[in-house]
């Protein structure tokens, strides 16, 4: 289980991560979402002991990454900075990690098979496509057969088949009871893979819920469409919730249709139409709403 507690990271005046707290649920896939610059990579780097927090803690099964006895066997990870030496063969890259972690070379060939990279195993990584690089990094992540995986934008640069492959791959890893933390700036890339999401924006937690809860949260803001010959009078009564779309037609946000109908009746306003719009926003819209700048700052 990964636990992030009151984590803050400042770079000079930039607050990359701002008092972030969340935990993963064992055996489930947690999507870590936020637009570019939200602080995802910084958070993951701190979890993995690569960067130092300004304050707060990040632990894996109760311990900081740097004090894990067998990090490769406990956590596997891919970061967007996970580089490859262009002159080194893919298999050699894995052999080096295996050697340092005390794993047999046979395991290297096993993971190369698991990520479908056997045919390119002896090719220098400088000749790899982005998708092949991602798969080699994933192979490195699962080398030690860890129970926890931390993946930073693994879908980045993958074509649709690649994304589909990744989805199946992550699902199969989770099916074995692994806990996976996977980041993305595009919800749709992971929405079919994850069980839960943590949404951050400007380093702050915006939501931590299941996908179903997230959609339900968005549904609360459905609008009501009202047609009335006295539309202007009704708009005055409703205040800023109402928007006159065209003469005689209003849309009302944040009010159930019952309330609008009763208000009209109390004031003797004739209604020609009162419709609760089936405006269940898409997950993507909820995500955009959560990560919109609401504090008036310039992004």
């Amino acid at each position, binding site marked *: 289980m990964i636990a992030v507690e009151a984590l803050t990271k400042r770079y000079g005046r930039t607050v990359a991560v701002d008092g972030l707290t969340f935990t993963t649920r064992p055996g489930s896939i947690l999507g870590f979402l936020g637009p570019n610059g939200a602080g995802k990579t910084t958070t993951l*780097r701190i979890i993995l002991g*690569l960067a130092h927090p300004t304050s707060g803690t990040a632990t894996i099964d109760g311990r900081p990454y740097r004090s894990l006895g067998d*990090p490769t066997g406990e956590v596997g990870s891919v*970061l967007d900075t*996970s*580089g490859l030496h262009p002159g080194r063969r893919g298999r050699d890259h894995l052999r*080096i*990690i295996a050697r340092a972690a005390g794993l047999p070379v046979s395991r290297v060939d096993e993971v190369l098979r698991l990520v479908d990279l056997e045919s390119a195993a002896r090719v220098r990584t400088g000749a790899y496509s982005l998708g092949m690089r991602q798969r080699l990094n994933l192979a490195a992540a699962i080398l030690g057969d860890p129970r926890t995986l931390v993946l930073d934008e693994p879908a980045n640069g993958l074509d649709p088949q690649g994304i589909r492959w990744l989805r199946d791959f992550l699902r199969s890893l989770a099916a074995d009871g692994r806990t996976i933390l996977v980041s993305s700036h595009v919800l749709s890339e992971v929405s079919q893979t994850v069980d839960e999401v943590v949404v951050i924006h400007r380093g702050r937690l915006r939501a931590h819920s299941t996908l179903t809860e997230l959609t339900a949260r968005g549904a609360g803001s459905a609008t009501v469409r009202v047609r009335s010959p006295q539309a202007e009078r009704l708009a005055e009564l409703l205040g800023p919730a109402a928007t006159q779309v065209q003469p005689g037609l209003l849309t009302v946000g944040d009010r159930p249709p019952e309330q609008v109908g009763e208000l009209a009746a109390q004031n003797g306003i004739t209604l020609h139409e009162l419709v609760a719009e089936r405006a269940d926003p898409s997950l993507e819209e909820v995500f955009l709403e959560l990560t919109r700048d609401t504090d008036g700052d310039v992004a």
Partner: protein
Amino acid sequence: MSALIAAEFLKLRTTRTFWWLSLVAVALPVLVVVITLATSNTVSQDDGRSLLSNIGIAGLFTLILGVVGAAGEYRHGTITSTFLVAPDRRRVLVAKALAHAIGGLFAGLVAAVVVLAIAIPWLSSQGHAVGTLSLSTGDIAAIAAGSVAYAAVAAILGVGFGSLLTSQVAAVVIVLILVSVVDPVAAGLAHQYGKFSLQGLGMAMSGNSSENAGYELFAPGVSGLIYLGYSIALIAAAAVAVPRRDIG
């Protein structure tokens, strides 16, 4: 620790940079020795020493090998996976220094063997068997061993520079300016500093006499210890700086 050293050595062996730099570390001393033998007469003991001490040229390239090996991890971003497997960065640093020392030793050893295999028969054919130059087998062995040790400690110094500076291009340029301009100029200007200079220490280790250097040198063993001290000091500085660093 031995697993980490083995991993670091595997890193070295699986890039072409290592093989190219090793090749140059061997080829250049050989070339200089061949040219010297072909163009000038080696008649005195000093001539003999100066000729064989060219093995030490290998040290310049093992120094660069260390710089490139350490800074290259930052350049290519492989430092991320390195520290993910081994989060104790000080251990990584020590393993890297030792692996490069082994690599440097290997390159120095090959350079020594090839140079001696060419120089000794050549001198004999010129009628100057090494014995007549009053160089004993022990002297020759000491020159070779000192040069090989120099190639090894230079690689450690390089790892120190590369780990501290991290920018590969900047590190290579700075180190080249240091060893080819700053250090020899300082040694030339202040002779009492000469024996402490990287150049003076390297010359002493690879068997040069003070006459060859143009300033007083320490004995090879003492020079080796001082050079090793510099290398360890730089690795120690890196051991303080590297763990504090944010990676990526």
